[in-house]
């Protein structure tokens, strides 16, 4: 409750309530935004109509090139309201292609950062294998770009970031979350289906947020910045991360540290999320 008391609900501008396109534009310098392969280019999924599903002419992925404080950036925003933000062939190719082009710009001396606004359940199962392939390609492209310029993932909510795209979030240079956001490989419902309700009760919202929620991910050192659902705070967080530049060592490279942490877990019972805060946060701050 104390956290909510600090928020100025009257004057702040919600980020979560914006759609993907508005989120992307809101982060960029006024007038700098230019959308690439926007809805008027009509490159939609070739696979959905075959299944009686109405495609969307941007395939749920908004790519906007622009600037933040004058520095070149590309924003890749997934629209959670279209097919759960899922990655299909087209939306996946848009992300991977834009990341590669940003990397190529960096490689010829024009540093360009990428901001990934993730609202996604992961692979679009209606495009199954091409979605999974796209996720593998996006992952590879994130690694290529982050060597040169920051790749910043923002998970604001309410869809969260799940499935294969959680790997791309983990590989990003910096991760920004709100307390409303969730991040995990498998959502609670999938675990309940696959492993039973005793393993994960998907109706227990408190449990879900205690594990996947932004506050917890930040508290155990897996997210870099925790912000409220407030455009000014998200924007400030993004700027801070751009200023820091490329990261020297990424969490997804700290294999020995995390392998050791996993070895120390008591697996005879479920892990108390709260107890991880003391052990994990502390050592990642060293």
């Amino acid at each position, binding site marked *: 409750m104390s956290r909510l008391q600090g928020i100025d609900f009257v004057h702040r501008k919600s980020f979560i309530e914006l759609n993907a396109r508005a989120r992307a534009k809101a982060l960029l310098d006024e007038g700098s935004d230019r959308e690439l392969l926007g809805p008027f280019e009509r*490159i939609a999924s070739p696979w959905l109509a075959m299944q009686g599903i109405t495609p969307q002419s941007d395939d749920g992925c908004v790519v906007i090139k622009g600037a933040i404080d004058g520095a070149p950036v590309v924003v890749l925003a997934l629209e959670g309201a279209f097919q759960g933000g899922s990655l299909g062939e087209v939306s996946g190719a848009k992300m991977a292609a834009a990341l590669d082009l940003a990397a190529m710009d960096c490689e010829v001396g024009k540093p360009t950062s990428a901001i990934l606004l993730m609202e996604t359940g992961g692979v679009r199962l209606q495009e199954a*294998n091409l979605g999974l392939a796209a996720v593998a390609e996006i992952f590879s492209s994130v690694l290529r770009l982050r060597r040169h310029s920051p790749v910043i993932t923002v998970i604001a909510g309410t869809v969260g970031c799940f499935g294969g795209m959680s790997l791309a979030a983990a590989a990003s240079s910096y991760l920004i979350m709100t307390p409303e956001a969730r991040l995990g490989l498998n959502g609670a419902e999938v675990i309940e289906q696959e492993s039973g309700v005793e393993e994960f009760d998907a109706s227990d919202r408190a449990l879900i947020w205690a594990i996947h929620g932004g506050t917890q991910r930040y508290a155990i050192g897996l997210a870099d910045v925790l912000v409220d659902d407030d455009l000014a705070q998200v924007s400030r967080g993004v700027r801070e991360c751009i200023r820091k530049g490329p990261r020297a060592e990424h969490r997804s490279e700290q294999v020995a540290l995390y392998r050791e942490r996993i070895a120390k877990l008591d697996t005879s019972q479920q892990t108390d999320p709260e107890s991880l805060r003391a052990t994990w946060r502390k050592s990642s701050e060293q």
Partner: protein
Amino acid sequence: MSNDLSNRGRAWFAGLTGVAKPMPGDPQSVLTADAKLGEERARFLCVVPNSNARFPCARGGEVGLEEAYTLAARVREAVAADKDGSKRPIVAIVDVKSQAYGRREETAAIFLAAAAAANAYADARVDGHPVISLVVGHAISGGFLTHGYQANRILALDDDGVVIHAMHKEAAARITRRSVEQLEGLAHSVIPLSYDVHDFAKLGLLHTLLHADNPEQPTPQDIEKVSRELASAVQDAREGPRDLSIRWSSAQAEKTRKATRLVRERMRQAWNEV
């Protein structure tokens, strides 16, 4: 979902390396060995079922926390050792039914573990190691993303027991609100939905399909033939780019991944117009 544990990974690993146990300190579920491949030594890695695993949701051959970090460590170890010398091939033998679906895994951030393994394989590829994926059984979802899908070349056995997919059939049907029969019917016309490895081959992601007389328990002839094919894929990878572009530039991809190619072409044009 079938509860039968697959022995394919272990059988092919043992056949190709002559080794049957993990490296010291590793969990029983991850097999790693350096063995001869063609004229050089390659590092082979495989995830196998371990009914005594510490993590209860990772006992059936799923890729869990221990598996992912062990893979990451063993791949990085090879990359570090070859830093100034010849880059040994890295071969992922793949038979993974999925990622581990557990609460312990989510709490302790399996998404990061999966990323760490994929990161290690991708770094090896970019560093000049030929990374080859040999799919001998299942290659499903996050399991495959973690172990095998960052390879330069993907080879698969031409066999009904080989399934490469984003999600196992029952769950995919449920989530897309279809019956399994409906899903199977659709998969005839919508190639990326198909569970048939011949259809997967049409997507342009696969280097080659390999026949084996006995996919469950490979014969010495099977091993010899697949070993030869792996060595040839290694040469091919050494001559090709270190990124994944072959997956959308292959002859098959020209037919099936038209949308991917169109997006890449148009994005490149639009990008440079700004």
